[in-house]
């Protein structure tokens, strides 16, 4: 005798009428018109088109690359001469010095490098010279001097100037201030 599992497994029932017509219609809806040989041809077509596209890209990029090379005049290519190199470096340094100087001058007095060490912002500072003599100096000038001692960025021209000013200032017990025109003139004449 067949057990219930087999009975269920082999259970059959007549399908509803018109089921095949529906399936047939469903197959018609999903039918894809096949063009004989298109599948194999389309593969070659795909590879051919990819190769052609790659070739066009290579040709265009090569053409553009060569064109850029041709347009670039030889005169525009910077010729580095060893004579000019030193002057160029000096020029760059002056530009850099200007920028640093501008920054220092524009900085508010209370934010100056040395002045910021004091609780109350000071306009003038008294520093000790190499022989212990007191030298009165504006915070602005002091900042300039300090910044000249920094190793980076290198400021050869600026450092030279500062060094010169240092010597002048140290030779006098009183340092001229930016507001005092007579002192500035005196400083200028002593420099000459």
């Amino acid at each position: 005798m067949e057990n219930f599992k087999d009975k269920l497994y082999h259970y059959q029932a007549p399908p509803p009428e018109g089921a095949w017509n529906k399936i047939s219609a469903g197959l018609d809806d999903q039918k894809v018109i096949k063009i004989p040989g298109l599948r194999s041809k389309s593969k070659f077509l795909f590879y051919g088109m990819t190769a052609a596209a790659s070739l066009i890209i290579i040709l265009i990029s090569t053409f553009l690359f060569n064109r850029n090379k041709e347009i670039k005049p030889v005169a525009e290519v910077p010729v580095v001469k060893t004579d000019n190199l030193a002057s160029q470096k000096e020029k760059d340094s002056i530009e850099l010095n200007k920028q640093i100087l501008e920054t220092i001058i524009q900085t508010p007095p209370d934010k100056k490098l040395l002045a910021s060490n004091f609780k109350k912002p000071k306009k003038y500072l008294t520093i000790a010279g190499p022989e212990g003599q007191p030298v009165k100096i504006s915070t602005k000038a002091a900042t300039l001097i300090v910044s000249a001692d920094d190793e980076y960025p290198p400021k050869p021209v600026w450092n030279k100037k500062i060094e010169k000013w240092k010597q002048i200032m140290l030779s006098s017990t009183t340092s001229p201030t930016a507001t005092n025109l007579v002192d500035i003139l005196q400083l200028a004449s002593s420099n000459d």
Partner: protein
Amino acid sequence: MTEKSNHIPSESDLIQGCIDEDRQMQESLYNRFSSKMYGVCLRYAGNSEDANDILQEGFIKVFKNISKFRREGSFEGWVRRIFVNTAIEQFRKKVKLYNVTEVQENTIEDKELDALDLLATKDIINIVNELSPGYKAVFNLHVVEGYSHKEIADLLGITEGTSKSQLARAKGVLKKFIETRLNKTSK
């Protein structure tokens, strides 16, 4: 009847004809398997409307994928598998099975369901169809089709534990149904 209509094509010719999209061959294949597959559809579907949908979708899938049949195993088995999968897809669209914590269910021996053997196929189908969709799906897949719990878990998107407990509960419900049926008949 013409000589052509009397000719019964071999399974191999039928398959080749369907690959070539010969509509007559497709109809022959439909005629050969439709009753069996409709039986499968009715076992899984909740109602005849759903069963009709599964039947239609299943045959379209068979015809679309027939070139993938490797002619190694049973062709009927391959067709049946497509129908079972289609029925499960339909089931998953409508019913959400929730994973439950695996609890030790009182396992009901298949022997306790042997009373079903005494019943006619139609009555067994009626009893099985009284099960909830989740129980019915697991019961059909495991007991009738012979799928493992791992396979059922993958098909239904549940854990093996859930599959096991669903089956145990399905058997429990079936046992009650059988008892009620037998009590009625004895009275």
